[in-house]
């Protein structure tokens, strides 16, 4: 297993730039998520790491070796495709042994290794079946088996759960994570599902329109989004973004939003003009003690909690409150924000303003 280092990676398709100068590091043994909406360049990035696309410029190091211009067959990585891409004319056993045969491994060793992997994945009973008749889950297991059988430098997965139905997805996600714990293999995993990314990843890179928006642990990207895009993309419901105009000095710990003042983390940056205040729904509480008034527009009951949509001077805001909290549509109420959970954004650049929260957080 190995560390993967991506430096200024760029890919152009004619006039269109799919990936702009991406830079990030996947540490040895990490479960690394490439997250973003469709068309953001995450799959292109993964395919460049795999060697299925050649980068226009930039460097890719796998285990200390520069591989940007090597063919896929010489990179010693395994790839799990969204549509599985099992060899349709082979049975399960031959699918699993195919990557080993290419390395010139002895027949007896191939057999033993295939059996070992089949045991790990619990697919010994279907080894002699053709892949055509397998269920989605079994195909997925065979695809994973084909990846792990060779013991490669890294696993690359392109939305491997995307083709499964919702119920089974959950199950496979847990299985996949357990497999990762067991193998401790460097894994790069592409997904557009932020819940999947948060649930499974050690680190997440969030990409948008070919740019890396943020790079960090699930906690970091959730608690301290580096940009408006990340704030909006991560979390369900996403972060409340309240636009206002004003001025914030470095060192300030209060923000004036046209009449109301909120406590916030100590700022490290100065900003003038239009800004956005970001606050997660669970960091908002409904209290009459607050002078920031609002009216309840809707409530959604979710069992363990409820989402309350409120109308404020700065637009609609969603708050997550306990399901036993008594609230009805039309109620007037005050809103209080957790001072430590506020992030300010510069509305022009879309970037978060640095505060004490961001110390030690990579972007």
């Amino acid at each position, binding site marked *: 297993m190995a560390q993967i280092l991506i430096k200024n990676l760029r890919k152009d398709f004619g006039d269109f730039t799919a990936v702009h100068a991406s830079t990030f590091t996947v540490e040895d043994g990490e479960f690394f998520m490439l997250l973003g909406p469709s068309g953001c360049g995450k799959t292109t990035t993964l395919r460049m790491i795999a060697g299925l696309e050649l980068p226009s410029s930039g460097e890719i190091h796998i285990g200390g070796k520069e591989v940007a211009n090597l063919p896929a*067959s010489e990179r010693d990585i*395994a790839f799990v495709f969204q549509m599985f891409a099992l060899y349709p004319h082979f049975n399960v056993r031959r699918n699993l042994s195919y990557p080993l045969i290419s390395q010139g491994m002895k027949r007896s060793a191939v057999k033993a290794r295939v059996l070992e992997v089949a045991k790990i994945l619990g697919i010994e009973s279907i080894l002699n079946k053709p892949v055509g008749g397998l269920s989605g889950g079994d195909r997925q297991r065979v695809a994973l088996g084909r990846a792990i059988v060779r013991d490669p430098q890294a696993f690359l997965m392109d939305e491997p759960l995307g083709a499964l139905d919702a119920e089974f997805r959950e199950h496979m996600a847990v299985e996949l994570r357990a497999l990762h714990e067991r193998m401790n293999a460097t894994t790069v995993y592409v997904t557009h599902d932020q819940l999947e990314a948060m649930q499974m990843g050690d680190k997440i890179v969030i990409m948008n329109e070919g740019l890396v928006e943020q790079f960090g642990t699930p906690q970091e990207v959730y608690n301290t989004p580096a940009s408006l895009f990340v704030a909006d993309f991560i979390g369900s419901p996403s972060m409340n973004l309240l636009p206002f105009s004003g001025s914030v000095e470095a060192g300030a710990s209060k923000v004036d939003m046209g009449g109301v003042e909120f406590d916030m983390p100590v700022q490290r940056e100065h900003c003038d003009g239009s800004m956005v205040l970001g606050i997660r729904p669970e960091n908002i509480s409904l209290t009459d003690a607050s002078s920031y008034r609002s009216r309840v527009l809707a409530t959604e009951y979710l069992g363990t909690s409820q989402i309350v949509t409120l109308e404020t001077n700065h637009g609609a805001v969603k708050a997550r409150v306990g399901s036993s909290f008594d609230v009805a549509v039309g109620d007037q109420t005050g809103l209080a924000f957790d001072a430590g959970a506020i992030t300010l954004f510069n509305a022009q650049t879309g970037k978060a303003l640095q505060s004490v929260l961001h110390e030690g957080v990579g972007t």
Partner: protein
Amino acid sequence: MSYSITEPSSRQKKVAGSLVILYAFITLVPLFWVFMTGFKTPPDSISYPPKILFTPSLEGYVNLFTTRTRVSPETLQQLPPPANFAEEIVRNRNMVIAGPSKYGERFLNSVIIGFGSTFLSIFLGTLAAYGFSRFKVPFKDDLLFFILSTRMMPPIAVAIPIFLMYRKLGLSDTHVGMILLYTAVNISLAVWLLKGFMDEIPLEYEEAALIDGYTRFQAFYKVVLPQAATGIASTAIFCLIFAWNEYAFAVLLTSGTAQTAPPFIPTIIGVGGLDWPAMAAGATIFLLPVLIFTVMLRKHLLRGITFGAVRK
């Protein structure tokens, strides 16, 4: 009564079945007539009204494979008794076998040229189709159109230039010349048909093979080709049928060493009068290889015709 939208009713099935039987009857009767004529004696074959019931004879087949000379009854008497059934049949007509006919050679020419050009068309067509399907080829669309355009005119339109060209190049009446010519005509069909099939094969299979440590060629050979087997089989049938049945170029460009069966069969008429049974025998034998080839590959052919209609 309940009925299904997708399942035809029994009346619809009966009508459809009758139409198919009628069509099969119309197409099969001439074939059957040719087959029967091959086993008639020459007088039976031209009798009027035509005979449906007759005593089968192998005279047509014997005449097809032999050349004969007429001899006087006296000479015939002095000959030793016939060595085999063929001699016996021939002597009944006051003739003796002078030697083998050229049919065997011509048939072999057809086999060499037909299968040779089919193999070459498929070999080149598969590689070209794969290239067009998978790689960035400069002027791809123009090239594909150019290839297709060779199909737009009837091949015979270029017969005279080809005739002159072949004469200059010394390719007239050679196996290589005919193989090249039929390949040139068939390759556009092969490239287009096969490109369609290749396009349908998901890229991921090859990518998986590339990542599993195989080279591009190995991936093509071991993963793509088996997937394309259906397409290759049906394309091969189309190519073979064309090359096998081709008449106009064969008449024009071959006369001896490389003459195929189609231009040879009619010349039987000229040998010793209208020998219909021999011609019919020649046609029957000529039909067999394509028939066998098509029956062998018919599963693929059927799948090929409906290919891409339903996403698997």
